[in-house]
């Protein structure tokens, strides 16, 4: 089939959504820095261009409240003040110096070392969730495992009181719908605004309590974190806790689900992991590369810059397509195959540069424990979907459903 029948400007075509390896390869072959008339911006699909784009925070802004994305938001933000009040404090959508200040403070609490402490508890949760899969024919892997594990883990790590944890699931879902889905439909925004307001007021007294009586949890860590006399304000701690709730669950859920699909395509790699559990770490990196939870991240050019053979003008939108970079044959040998021993494996799934995913250590830990334990418990499994369908979305790689029948010994 020639490329004439595929619209390269349609990032939500059936091929783009459901067969991204084909679509992005087509784009990359046409031009790794491609002007998309419909998205009205540059689509970067080459590894070097994407990695350079992530590192170039001086020219490429993450600020959602300025530039071309800010114009879209300001049209609706006054109607949903709770939502946008906190969203505007998310350091992920800020540039230096605010980003640098908040990120380094939060990072003092959220370190790989503090995450590693959670491993035994994550292992126990995984074991419990696996029991429900064992007894089920066509288990709902998304709801029963992939969504549940990260939302419990982040709730416990933050130190959210038990009575809030069930509500956390709903809040997380409503906020995820605002942040990961493009377009501004009214019902979704209203729900997101409600969720943001309720979650903030639920967290506020907890944070005050932690200030008076610190515990061994992330909320206490953020309250205490200081850098030469500078602390996070109460609203900043709330905003960051909320950021972790939604950023921590949807992405990890998709990573776990996409991993199961990847292993179904490469059963030999599943058997290999089962035989050698010490491969769980490199296997997780390979799943992150092969089919990570994020397709792409958007930026805009604050200053003019050069990428590939093109001049990018100030004010232009730029989409850094991580999925495409991770499948660039110029960087990865045989990119369409899963090889759980692949190393080095410098995928772009967590980004690069100053905005590199803060939650990377936690996502890695959860995926290592989940894939390792599932492979150990189930020598075989079968995906019980006629066709795998993905949510039509430019930024996330999210299955609509994933039912799986796992087989024991």
């Amino acid at each position, binding site marked *: 089939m020639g490329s004439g029948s595929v619209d390269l400007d349609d990032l939500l075509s059936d091929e783009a959504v459901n067969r991204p390896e084909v679509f992005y390869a087509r784009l990359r072959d046409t031009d790794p820095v491609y002007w998309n008339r419909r998205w009205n911006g540059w689509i970067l699909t080459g590894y070097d261009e994407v990695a350079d784009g992530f590192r170039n925070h001086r020219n490429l802004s993450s600020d959602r409240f300025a530039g071309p994305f800010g114009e879209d938001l300001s049209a609706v933000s006054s109607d949903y003040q709770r939502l946008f009040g906190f969203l505007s404090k998310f350091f992920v959508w800020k540039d230096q110096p605010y980003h640098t200040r908040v990120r380094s403070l939060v*990072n003092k609490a959220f370190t*790989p*070392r503090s995450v590693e402490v959670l491993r035994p508890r994550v292992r126990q949760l995984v074991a419990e969730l696996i029991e429900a899969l064992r007894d089920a024919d066509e288990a709902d892997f998304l709801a029963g495992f992939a969504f549940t594990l990260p939302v419990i883990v982040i709730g416990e790590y933050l130190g959210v009181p038990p009575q809030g944890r069930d509500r956390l699931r709903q809040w997380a879902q409503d906020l995820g719908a605002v942040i990961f889905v493009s377009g501004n439909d009214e019902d979704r925004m209203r729900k997101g605004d409600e969720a943001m307001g309720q979650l903030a007021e639920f967290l506020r007294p907890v944070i005050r309590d932690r200030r008076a009586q610190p515990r061994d949890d992330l909320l206490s860590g953020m309250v205490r974190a200081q850098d030469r006399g500078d602390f996070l304000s109460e609203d900043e701690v709330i905003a960051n806790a909320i950021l972790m709730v939604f950023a921590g669950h949807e992405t990890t859920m998709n990573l776990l689900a996409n991993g199961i699909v990847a292993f179904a395509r490469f059963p030999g790699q599943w058997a290999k992991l089962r035989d050698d559990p010490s491969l769980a770490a490199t296997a997780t990196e390979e799943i992150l590369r092969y089919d990570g939870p994020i397709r792409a991240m958007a930026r805009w050019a604050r200053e003019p810059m050069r990428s590939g053979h093109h001049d990018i003008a100030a004010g232009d939108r730029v989409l850094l397509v991580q999925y495409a970079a991770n499948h660039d044959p110029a960087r990865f040998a045989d990119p369409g195959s899963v090889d759980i021993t692949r190393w080095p494996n410098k995928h772009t799934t967590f980004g690069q540069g100053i905005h*590199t*995913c*803060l939650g*990377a250590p936690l996502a890695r830990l959860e995926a290592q424990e989940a894939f390792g334990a599932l492979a150990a418990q189930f020598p075989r499994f079968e995906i019980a979907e006629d066709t795998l369908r993905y949510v039509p979305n430019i930024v996330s790689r999210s299955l609509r459903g994933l039912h799986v029948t796992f087989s024991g010994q």
Partner: protein
Amino acid sequence: MQQVRATVDHDRCAGVTLCTQAAPGAFAINDDGQSEYQPGHGDLRDLREAADGCPMSAIAVFADDKEVT
């Protein structure tokens, strides 16, 4: 006196630059966006803070050639 130094694993480093704040002077970002240890700079406390805070776990710290964990 104790000899301290650090290494940065470039198979892991993502150029996050937090180490340059945790241990001022001890790390610099090269043209490829990777952090590089600057020999002779940084005390043990700062280097350990940089290693502990690295989200990619790319930094190792050594005191008298023994890794500090």
